[in-house]
């Protein structure tokens, strides 16, 4: 039981143990709960960093034990899992800090932070899962641990949102389970392999493989908010800001997209999926989602709902990237997995700041907010420019590689979709920036809770927002440096293709 066995378990344990302890903590022990959360997050970043460093040195970390006859529970740290694990652990630290600040006087925080840590554990599990079965286990655990967060406020609307959320995700989970069961009965072991495992399936079973592919993608598509299955995402906006930041930027939506990436690359293998001809329809679905999401975002008047629909469209970039046959498309998809996370977290933090400090929920109430809350508005501007895909933010890098990948794989219309969606993003983000910076303050703030003392709002809320904004710019500017997510994604992409 050397280090390589216990390291993945340790990463999971940091949040599982914290969750258990926090559940037991009485409500009034705020400081202890906060410090416990922060320590857990920092320890997790340390462990993940150590593993990333290890993976660079081709060291293998794997936990494997038999779960059922013929089924193993596998946690493995390969390059792809470290990409997602890295993103989650870093963004988690910021979301935790933000949540501590956000829920300053809110009731039942023990329950909130307990499920919050459970969510981390399941996201880490999804990242580290070594085969489809373990992935499914943590995928469903994620649903269960995010439901209480969605209904945390206990109002009628949040309960309705929770019910819709469950209806979508549980049905998705059932479809996924049937898909995986079919695949297991056909192929046996479901371990992820660098270039996919299904190449040597006899050709007469390819029809069934396509059906299984559709089942898997539908199951995962619910969480990845592909168009017909995204209904839960805008409704779940009723949850508190750290939860919507968590749901839409780091955990749930990313889990779905990451799952699709895993299925396409590590189960089917990109060459085999291209041979099966499933990539083009997948790209089509992703393209439809991108455009549809952007159109819907245009029509929203609520700030968070507009961000939600923007997430629906942005996540499909990742799916689009994985559907483009060629290393460039892969790099684009993978790197967007990170970039979208960072940018979307920034935007949601800003939305949360506006709501918490000035009580702004509607876009038209944002007039002149740039004056009153300059730092948050600058962060929002950086995030928005990132979403539009303007350099030097990280968004440009992923759009650049997705464009190149589209041309490399011969789907020129995909470039058209990318450009059109950038224009649409501009169409629904620039008016907000216009209101922030160029409009004078018309009426009093709807509900100004936090007065502008030394900082424009509570430092707990401000620091993560600014930090993630700096991250967005940083990953953009330092894109070509060896440590950047771009180089890590290219490292993965090269391995995904047959030599």
């Amino acid at each position, binding site marked *: 039981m050397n280090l390589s066995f216990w390291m993945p378990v340790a990463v999971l344990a940091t949040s599982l143990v914290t969750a258990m302890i926090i559940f037991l903590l009485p409500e009034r022990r705020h400081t202890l709960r906060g410090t416990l959360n922060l320590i857990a997050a920092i320890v997790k970043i340390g462990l993940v960093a150590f593993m990333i460093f290890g993976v660079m040195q081709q060291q293998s970390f794997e936990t494997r034990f038999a779960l059922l006859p013929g089924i193993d*529970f596998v946690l493995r740290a390969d390059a792809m899992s470290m990409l997602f694990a890295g993103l989650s652990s870093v963004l988690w630290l910021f979301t935790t800090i933000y949540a501590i600040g956000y829920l300053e006087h809110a009731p039942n925080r023990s329950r909130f932070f307990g499920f919050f840590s459970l969510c981390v554990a399941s996201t880490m599990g999804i990242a580290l899962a070594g085969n489809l079965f373990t992935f499914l286990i943590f995928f469903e655990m994620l649903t269960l641990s995010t439901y209480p967060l969605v209904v945390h406020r206990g109002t009628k609307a949040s309960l309705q949102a929770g019910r819709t959320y469950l209806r979508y995700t549980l049905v998705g989970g059932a479809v996924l*389970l049937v898909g995986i069961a079919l695949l297991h009965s056909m192929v046996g072991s479901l371990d992820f392999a660098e270039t996919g495992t299904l190449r040597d399936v006899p050709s007469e079973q390819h029809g069934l493989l396509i059906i299984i592919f559709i089942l898997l993608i539908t199951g995962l598509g619910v969480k990845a908010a592909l168009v017909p299955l995204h209904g839960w995402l805008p409704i779940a906006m009723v949850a508190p800001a750290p939860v919507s930041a968590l749901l839409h930027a780091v955990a749930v939506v990313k889990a779905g997209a990451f799952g699709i990436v895993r299925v396409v690359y590590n189960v089917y293998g990109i060459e085999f999926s291209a041979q099966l001809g499933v990539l083009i329809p997948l790209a089509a679905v992703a393209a439809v989602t991108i455009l549809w999401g952007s159109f819907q975002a245009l029509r929203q008047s609520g700030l968070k709902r507009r961000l939600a629909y923007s997430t629906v469209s942005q996540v499909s970039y990742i799916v689009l990237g994985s559907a483009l046959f060629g290393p460039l498309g892969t790099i684009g998809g993978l790197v967007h997995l990170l970039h979208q996370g960072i940018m979307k977290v920034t935007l949601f933090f800003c939305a949360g700041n506006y709501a918490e400090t000035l009580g702004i929920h509607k876009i038209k109430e944002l007039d002149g907010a740039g004056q009153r809350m300059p730092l948050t508005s600058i962060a929002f501007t950086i995030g928005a420019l990132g979403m539009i895909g303007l350099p030097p933010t990280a968004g440009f890098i992923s759009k650049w590689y997705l464009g190149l990948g589209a041309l490399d794989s011969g789907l020129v219309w995909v470039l058209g979709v990318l450009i059109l969606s950038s224009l649409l993003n501009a169409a629904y983000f620039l008016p907000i920036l216009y209101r922030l910076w160029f409009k004078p303050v018309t009426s009093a703030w709807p509900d100004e809770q936090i007065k502008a003392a030394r900082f424009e709002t509570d430092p707990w809320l401000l620091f993560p927002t600014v930090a993630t904004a700096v991250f967005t710019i940083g990953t953009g500017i330092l894109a070509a440096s060896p440590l950047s997510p771009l180089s890590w994604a290219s490292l993965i992409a090269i391995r995904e293709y047959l030599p």
Partner: protein
Amino acid sequence: MTTLTLIPALLLIPLVFAILSLLVTRPWRNAFALLGIALQAVAALSLSWVIFTEGASSTALGNWAVPLGILLVADGLTVTLLTLTAFIAVICALYAFFYLRAYPREERYFWPLFWFLLAALNGIWLADDLFNLYVGLELLGLAAVGMVALQATQQSLAAALRYLLAALFGSLMYLLGVALLYGSYGTLAMGQLSDLMVGDLTTQIALLLMTLGLLIKTACFPFHYWLPPAHGGALAPVSALLSALVVKSSFYILARIWLDLGTLAVPIGLPEVLGLLGTCAILYGAWRAYTASEIKMLVAWSTVAQLGYLLLLFPLALNTTEAAAHLAWQGTLMHLLAHGFAKGAMFLAVGTLVLAARSTQLSDLAGISRKLPMALFAYGLAAVSLMGLPPSGGFSAKWLLIQSALHSGQWVWIIVISVGSLLSAAYLFRVFSVSFVEGKQRELQPTHPMLDVTALTLALIAIALGFFGMIPLSLMELGTPLPESPLPTGGQP
């Protein structure tokens, strides 16, 4: 302590304690019961350890020969079920210590009935001949009816009567089947019967009658009417024991009859009919649970629904390939275990909630997640296993059943299982959405923390089954009825 002494000990301990606990006066009762539980647990675990190391063994009581004497067999399957019973009994007893403080009058008669129930269960698991099973069933039935009628309120007495009449009718049908079998084969020992059994008309009739009787006692779909009031109305530890163990024993006998003895005599269409009954149970139970307004009735109807899954064993295991049958058998056993632990945990957790809120109405439980987080967390974990969501034992069971359905190419059961788990999610999450409601608060009575701890331990075992499913499955392999029985290799590839 060889198996020779251990196996009868498992029967003797509960019987002795049953009688003595009647005599013990009030202050000593808890200590005495604790001693009994400890002994019982030690005996069960040591037997399972012995079986695990040395393999299956059996002892003849008073070593009389089989046709007349009673043979007690302890193979892998029996030991797994014994350990299940021991675990649940120990935890329900611990729960009962603190729960019955609020019910002094019931406490006096709870313990003797508890021990009789335990004796009957151990008797059924260990028995290897049909008539001994009949005796076990009867003892179990009477003890269970006694427990249901403990509170002596009008509803509980009506429920007890209804349960008793149904149980008696069922056992008589079973006895009739036994009589016919004895008439045509001259022996009742399972081992000999399975070799002699031939598929003629009388055997089929006998087996059908026994199936009818056992279906009534397992409260399967058309005959489920007595279960919800009985399990819903009873005290929390009682309903936990009933739902987790009692209904399972008659199913266990049904499974052994068909898979062990009557594999040759399976009339065409029976497995499919049983499968259909199971599906109807899942759907009807889920619908009634979804519309139940009382939380205990919701959980009781959930038992009716979950029992439907057990019936899926027959279409998956009879006249299908070897691999499919084996997977189905493993799946069913895993479901038996997981449902036992999860339903036990859920009834205990719900019992705490009802005790604290002083009302069984679901709407009165608004916002309890703030006051009773641990009880709700236990309920949550149990719900996860019942819904068959990973990482729980329920999920492994669902996975095995789906695999077996895939191997035997019967698609319909996959759909049934998936839809069933979604429906169970629908009604189980009702409690959650109520518990998260902020706003009006009923003031809650303080409850003993041990109530939560026991419920949580059972729930955690149900979840742990998901991770350590291999242990019971490998334990079960030792001398299971299935592998060596000559399965017809007909049916789909």
